[in-house]
């Protein structure tokens, strides 16, 4: 396995978020980190992407400590899409995707044929090539997110990490983004690891799920293993009923409101 966290302690300034976190991102799979607000899932992802140096323990990429690997080299192996994205003023789609080549270029060199090819390919697989001359700030939420993913793809890495890529998007756009990531995994063999909020989306798209609470890994496994009424209650503090998705058969968690919770306890008790 190429990317793993080994007993890392993560902290912002003095505030410890995670004490002793160990997890391995499975190669060639789509993994999802999930948990309530403040559970440390985004922090864990930032550490995996070497954006947050662990206070203790280490993150290992290809057998080497990621903090000891030159950051430019890491950028050629692993791409990270942060949650908060700053779109430069009136930039075109193509120009934004070109940023993905930054780790492959030096200051004085003109772009190589390989750079151009990678940018074209990234725009093609994300279906953003036809938008290339449009300004990014004029796109729809889903299109814009596809452009950011194209930027990551242009980096030419097999590992792609994304921090809540669907937050603030309408459901149609959420599906647009997750379908694209699924397709990249299936067709291009990319390893995808992302933080998601919605457990039903996670169940639908993930091969492997990490469930986190208060900075610790509670459980991990396939969506079928992980999404049980007990886990949902324990981690999110929510009573729910887990049923198979009528079409995909994946587990679906349906949270219950107070009146229904009483009914359920009568029925089962």
């Amino acid at each position, binding site marked *: 396995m190429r990317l793993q966290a080994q007993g890392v302690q993560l902290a912002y300034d003095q505030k410890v978020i995670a004490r002793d976190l160990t997890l391995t991102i499975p190669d060639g799979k789509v993994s999802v980190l999930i948990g309530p607000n403040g559970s440390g899932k985004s922090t864990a992802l930032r550490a995996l992407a070497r954006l947050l140096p662990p206070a203790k323990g280490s993150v290992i990429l290809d057998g080497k400590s990621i903090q000891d690997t030159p950051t430019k080299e890491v950028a050629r192996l692993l791409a990270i899409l*942060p949650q*908060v994205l700053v779109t430069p003023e009136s930039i075109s789609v193509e120009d934004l995707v070109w940023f993905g080549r930054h780790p492959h270029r030096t200051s004085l060199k003109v772009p190589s044929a390989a750079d151009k090819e990678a940018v074209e390919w990234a725009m093609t697989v994300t279906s953003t090539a036809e938008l290339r001359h449009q300004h990014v700030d004029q796109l729809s939420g889903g299109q814009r997110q596809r452009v950011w993913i194209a930027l990551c793809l242009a980096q030419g890495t097999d590992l792609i990490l994304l921090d809540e890529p669907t937050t603030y998007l309408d459901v149609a756009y959420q599906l647009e983004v997750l379908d694209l990531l699924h397709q990249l995994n299936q067709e291009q063999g990319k390893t995808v690891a992302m933080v998601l909020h919605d457990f039903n989306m996670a169940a639908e798209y993930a091969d492997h799920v990490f469930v986190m609470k208060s900075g610790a890994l509670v459980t991990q496994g396939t969506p079928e293993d992980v999404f049980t009424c007990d886990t949902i209650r324990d981690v999110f503090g929510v009573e729910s009923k887990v049923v198979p998705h009528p079409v995909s058969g994946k587990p679906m968690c349906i949270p219950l409101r107070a009146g229904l919770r009483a009914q359920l306890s009568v029925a089962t008790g």
Partner: protein
Amino acid sequence: MSSTTIVAQHVRRTSLAKRHPAALMGSLGVLAVVLSIYSLKVGATEVSFGNVLHALVGDRSDQAAAIVFDFQVPRVLLCWLIGTALAVSGAVMQGVIRNPLAAPDIIGVTKGAGFGGMLLLLAIPGVPVLAVVPAAFVGGLLAAGLVYLLAYRRGATPVRIALVGIAVSAAFEAGIRFLLVRKPLDVSAALIWLTGSLFGRSMSAVLEILPWVLVLVPLIVIWARKLDVLGLGDDLAAGLGEPVEKTRRLLLLFAVALAAAAVAVAGTIGFVGLIAPHMARRVFGGKHLASIPAAALFGVLLMLFADMIGRGLAPPLEIPAGLVTAVVGGPYFLYLLVKTGK
């Protein structure tokens, strides 16, 4: 209805510069050269274009030509160097701090540099002028450090940085005035440190600032893409393999050095470092590879205009160039403040 108008303007504005960016940049350059030649003629002494021509070919037998050569040529060269230094410094600061209100004078670097330079001049009388730039550099760094400590830590808003910068500026200006009262220099020197002027500057001033501009500006242009990457936010920039903190510090150091060099030779000329990068971005867009050279040209044009107006308005009286830029720049700064504060 109104939204369509905005989009249309948006597209038109960028397409002009997008279709012919080199031509537009070239015309700005030509304009600056023409203005420079014309500006050799303006001033207290009446000289003709014939005198100017003689001076330019190096004929010093003509007395008027000698005046042009000794007084006007250094001034025009200084306009180029100072305009470039201040504008590029401002462009880098706005890019690195990601704050449209950042500029050497807004964040206190200009007054800090003025204070540093003056302190050295008073402490060691007869110090070689070449040492003034490093002293100004130290003063500028001190001011930038103060602003950083007081405002920048933990996500300061653009307006907050500007406010702290103005306070720090005021403190250093008070320091400059205090030094002037304690050890009165001659009036022209006082004017230079307080408002910025090109009056009576000679070729030695040109040589003082030239190496800084010649080394740092190309270095910054080479690093233009790093500035672009920093504009994507810290996390994405770091994810793209840019050592964010290191790059940011180095670029800010370059920016402070450029501003300090400008202050060391001409005092505190305000607002050029704020306005020129804005004009450049509006016309040429956000890519630093285009907007930094464009900012330099706008800076040169602003300096040439300010100096010419200052000299030509009521000769033989001289209005310091720094005063002219303040008259134009003050309202522009207020406009930006209101726009950004919203």
